[in-house]
């Protein structure tokens, strides 16, 4: 079974995340980044499926130069090869354009039996790219899988909702997005680090995919960030002095804030 996993390079949540002053896009260049943690689950699930049977895992990312780090991590975990779509024109693309570029890249990679994505990116957290991508590829979309199994030509997933868990079956090829409940992503190993150095990484530009620059980027985006405001610094909380009525004051405070 051949699987394509879509991965994203995101700013490290441990450090300060910022926007570019000039065009209000997320600053991905001046900050430490990494493979989106939610995509590690997608990579892990693909590796498990291929290890249990046969086939190849190809990871694909659309992003700036540094996004190669996300691919490297996936290759170190065990993916077989990687595709990096990068083009200056892509900067500022919204989910619609990103899904277009990913769809064309996946078509060029071949016809995978399964496309796996994370449930959302840890920076944008929109969760819409998987659905758009399935639509563009004409694949059944089975999203938010907390459990996944393959049986011949069908894929079965469990989607956990607040009220019920659904079991969803689709025919292959299909697109599945996975949640952080589905598995425990492995760490790379030192052997994996060494092996990754020899794995193929292809770099494609928009022209290689037949995508016109006018279809992507900030200008083509359906939605744009007009302005942003820095989160105000945290203010010191209210200090209640206990003159014997501390409990009452505390309850009054909680009541006023509608906590009780």
């Amino acid at each position, binding site marked *: 079974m051949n699987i394509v996993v879509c991965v994203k390079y995101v700013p490290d949540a441990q450090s300060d995340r910022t926007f570019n002053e000039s065009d209000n896009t997320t600053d991905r260049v001046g900050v430490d980044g990494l493979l989106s943690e939610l995509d590690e689950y997608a990579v892990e699930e693909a590796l498990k499926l291929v290890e249990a049977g046969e086939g190849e895992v190809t990871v694909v990312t659309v992003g700036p130069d540094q996004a190669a780090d996300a691919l490297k991590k996936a290759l170190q975990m065990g993916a077989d090869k990687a595709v990096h779509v990068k083009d200056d024109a892509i900067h500022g693309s919204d989910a619609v354009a990103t899904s277009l570029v990913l769809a064309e890249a996946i078509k060029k990679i071949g016809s995978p039996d399964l496309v796996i994505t994370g449930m959302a990116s840890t920076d944008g957290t929109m969760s819409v790219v998987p659905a758009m991508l399935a639509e563009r590829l004409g694949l059944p979309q089975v999203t938010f899988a907390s459990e996944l199994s393959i049986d011949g030509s069908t894929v079965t997933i469990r989607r956990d909702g607040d009220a019920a868990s659904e079991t969803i079956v689709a025919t292959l090829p299909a697109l599945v997005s996975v949640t952080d409940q589905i598995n425990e992503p492995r*760490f*790379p190993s030192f052997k994996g*680090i060494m092996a990754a150095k020899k794995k193929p990484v292809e770099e494609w530009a928009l022209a290689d995919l037949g995508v016109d620059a006018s279809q992507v980027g900030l200008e083509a985006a359906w939605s744009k960030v007009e302005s942003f405001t820095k989160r105000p610094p945290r203010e010191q909380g209210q200090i209640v002095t206990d003159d014997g009525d501390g409990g009452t004051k505390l309850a009054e405070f909680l009541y006023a804030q509608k906590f009780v």
Partner: protein
Amino acid sequence: MVATRLLPSEEAHDLIDLTREICDKELRPRVDAAEAAAAVDPQFPRDVYKILGRAGLLSLPYAEEWGGGGQPYEVYLQVVEEIASAWMSVAVGVSVHSLTAYPVATVGTDAQKQALLTGMLSGDQLGAYCLSEPLAGSDIGSMTTRATPDGSAGDGWTIKGRKAWISHAGHADYYTSFVRTSDDGGRGLSCFVVPGVAAGLTFGAPERKMGLHCDTVREVIYDTVPVDGDRLVGTEGQGMAIALAALDSGRLGIAAAATGLAQSALDLAASYAKDRMQFGRPIADNQGLAFMVADMEAAVTGARAAYLHAARLKDAGRAFSKEAAVAKLLCTDAAMRVTTDAIQVLGGAGYTQDFPAERMFREAKVTQIFEGTNQIQRLVISRHVLKG
């Protein structure tokens, strides 16, 4: 603060990144609770070593041919330092395990490497290093645990005696054991790899220690333990030379671990000093306190430079025994001073178990004792300097 590292290759950078990720996700979240629990009821985090083993971190300084990572000591030791900054007991365990593979890796035959070393380096196994005895600590030449030929056709041996303060005892898959095979003092010792499942191998109760609780330390008792002849590593009588050479490398592991411990005590103190307000300003704004932090930084940086210098000599195939002893002395003394000062910076909070400063202080103390006390390091250094 993340230590600034000069590393010789891209793979070494990736390796340090991997180590930091494992430390952040698996070690740091567990260390406080695990050490506190093990202080009351001895327990050994074997599963943590499984994670490290799978990631390839238990075999870094050995040849790839036998399953090792093929990394220079310079890189391996910085991995140990990173682990120590998260969980000292585990870093000591990694260093001890690496030491246990040293005899077979350096003087073993190819057949022994195939039969024993590949398992030791697989990441699945954990070893124990059995040198010290109740009556033979610094003076290992006086050990009495003895192997005698069993007279069988297979050149087998029988081991009788006991070893003291053995890390991983009861949890290890094999015991790299130094025992007496003749009465010829230091020249009468030999090295055997005893399987953990050997008949007659038993263990004392876990020692109740001052710290480093997740490093389970027990007596290893050889009650007439049969050992096959092909488990004698090196020649009969070569044991002392092997043990001393292994310790040259092993004490670099302890030096690196002590440095990591000191770094994390410094980090804790620096962040506390910036937050803690007294007299209307952060305590860090007092030069008297800021200079303590400066001295801590100088000690950590100096320690790191000392062990890396010895490691680079070793990696270049040069003599490094004196430099390893210097590094062990400087790094462990630095760890003791820096952890002591970290408690001072934290004040009353530092003396409580609400902060890890007091745990680090207890962990630092043992680094001045094991793998050769710091008096023994001075003995080694002075002999080198004054010889001839």
